[in-house]
């Protein structure tokens, strides 16, 4: 049985073209709410804003992203090291070794018109992935539709743009490709997990001394751990909590099914994974912020250790001290 709709029924919207009555307002950003609804979107804006400024600065800086054995997540996987800007680049850590001189020359010609010298930072090749993942994330979409575009800025707050509303049709159909960004994000969890593992292995030279910037390739690796290892592993945990609570992930691993149970009532692996994902999914906003903050902190920690602002407490310096 199908119920068809007459043209009139579908043509008219809720208020049937009338102006709002009942003492309601309709000018942009007006509302009858008496609570401080502005605080939420402002905090979001502040949070995003500081993150974007920090990441942009650190990516363009192209420096201080490796302090043995810790690699900043903004630079992982390290595609190549750039000897031009950091004499102590961990060439041994980079997938493609040192950046070829020709590429560097090309880059310098490209940016010759700029008033300041921009390094060709390895971070550019990496950040595009997390940026597209977070940029199309269902939670972040809500957050920036509210706090950046004001569509709407808060519930029952009149939208800023009063023109024809198209939502996520037309231009924003691009958001539907979120799952592709998710595939890369899942790969990143493994890559960062590997970095977490490497953070337990201190590169040392033939004399057994810790690898230092400019020290060439290490002779061997020594097992141990430090505060930096903990910071890096927590980063993997938080990013994992965020990534595996993703709505697209939740759909792909089970949400798209209508039947989890077999006729005998057994539920398989996909149900179990779907249940766990749903638990994380309910906390998606929390993980989004915690992981955003922590990835920034992880980078900051490594930056600070590189510059000696913080001394990394670790087992390697302890053994070195005992040995002396």
């Amino acid at each position, binding site marked *: *049985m199908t119920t068809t709709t007459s043209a009139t029924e579908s043509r008219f919207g809720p208020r049937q073209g009338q102006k709002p009555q009942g003492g*309601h307002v309709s000018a942009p950003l007006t509302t009858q709410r008496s*609570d401080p609804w502005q605080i939420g979107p402002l905090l979001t804006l502040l949070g995003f804003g500081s993150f974007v400024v920090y990441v942009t600065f650190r990516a363009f800086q192209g420096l201080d992203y490796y302090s043995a054995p810790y690699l900043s997540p903004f630079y992982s996987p390290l595609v190549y090291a750039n000897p031009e800007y950091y004499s102590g680049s961990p060439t041994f850590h980079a997938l493609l070794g040192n950046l070829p001189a020709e590429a560097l020359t090309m880059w310098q010609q490209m940016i010759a018109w700029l008033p300041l010298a921009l390094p060709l930072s390895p971070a550019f090749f990496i950040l595009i992935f997390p940026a597209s993942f977070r940029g199309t994330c269902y939670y972040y979409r809500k957050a920036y539709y509210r706090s950046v575009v004001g569509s709407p800025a808060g519930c029952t707050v009149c939208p800023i743009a009063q023109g024809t*509303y198209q939502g996520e049709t037309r231009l924003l*159909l691009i958001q*539907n490709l979120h799952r592709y960004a998710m595939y890369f994000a899942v790969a990143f969890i493994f890559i960062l997990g590997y970095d977490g593992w490497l953070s337990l292995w201190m590169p040392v030279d033939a004399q057994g001394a810790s690898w230092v910037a400019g020290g060439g390739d290490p002779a061997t690796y020594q097992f141990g751990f430090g505060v930096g290892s903990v910071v890096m592993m927590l980063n993997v945990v938080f990013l994992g909590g965020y990534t595996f609570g993703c709505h697209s992930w939740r759909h792909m691993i089970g949400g798209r099914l*209508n*039947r989890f149970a077999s006729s005998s009532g057994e539920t398989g692996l996909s149900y179990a994974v779907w249940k766990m994902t749903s638990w994380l999914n309910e906390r998606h906003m929390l993980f989004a912020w915690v992981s955003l903050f922590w990835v920034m902190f992880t980078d900051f920690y490594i930056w600070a250790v590189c510059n000696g602002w913080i001394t990394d407490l670790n087992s390697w310096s302890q053994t070195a001290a005992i040995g002396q």
Partner: protein
Amino acid sequence: MSERTFRIWRGNPQDGGDFVEYTIDVQTGMVVLDCIHEIQKQHAPDLACRWNCKAGKCGSCSMEINGKPALSCMTRMNTFEEGETITVQPLKTFPVIRDLTNDVSWNYQQNKRIRPFAPRPRDPDGEHRMMQEDVDRVQEFRKCIECFLCQDMCHILRDRETQQNFAGPRFMVRLASLDMHPLDTDDRIQEVRDESGSGLCNITRCCTEACPEHINITDNAIIPLKERVVDRFYDPLMWLMRKLKPGNSREKTTVE
């Protein structure tokens, strides 16, 4: 017991209207609906409002209290600041009939547009069988009391001129409860996108904030439906898979 002031919108579409202030004594344990009844008793016997169960289950007492859509029978007076004037209005999204009452019939028209439940044939013994794990998800959606607070809250229906192209969160919930049902055989994905306008929702979650039954409208109904729409219409890999292996991508998906 304390004295409280209410600003209540009085009027009708023909003659217009305005806010009128009423002051009454409020006892411990009273809800906004009790206060409205008290105002009717003491000051304004002709003040129009709708209510029925006074238990948060019939969904008729929806109004906007201090700018937020809420059930007046479930809004306790002790949630307001001492001395705060409480503003009460009819819903913004639907035409006002009089005072605090709205004509919500547009919602019933939307409901009629959704094709009804189409279960697969019964098992040989005449039973319909489904597993608890499979119906858990749709049971959440069955809690809906049709108060239409989510419809009132949704900025598309509330403030946008494209409102007639979107069925609204309540009906996305209904569509989800049908599309995810383990027994349903109908293919509703095209309808979700084209008739009900899933693409218009920008997942800003106000509907979820409004729902008195705490149905996770955006996360559990709308976003999963949007993902199913992506499978069908926007994912190039899924499209390729359907071409290579027709009929296998999702049980209910009929291949175009």
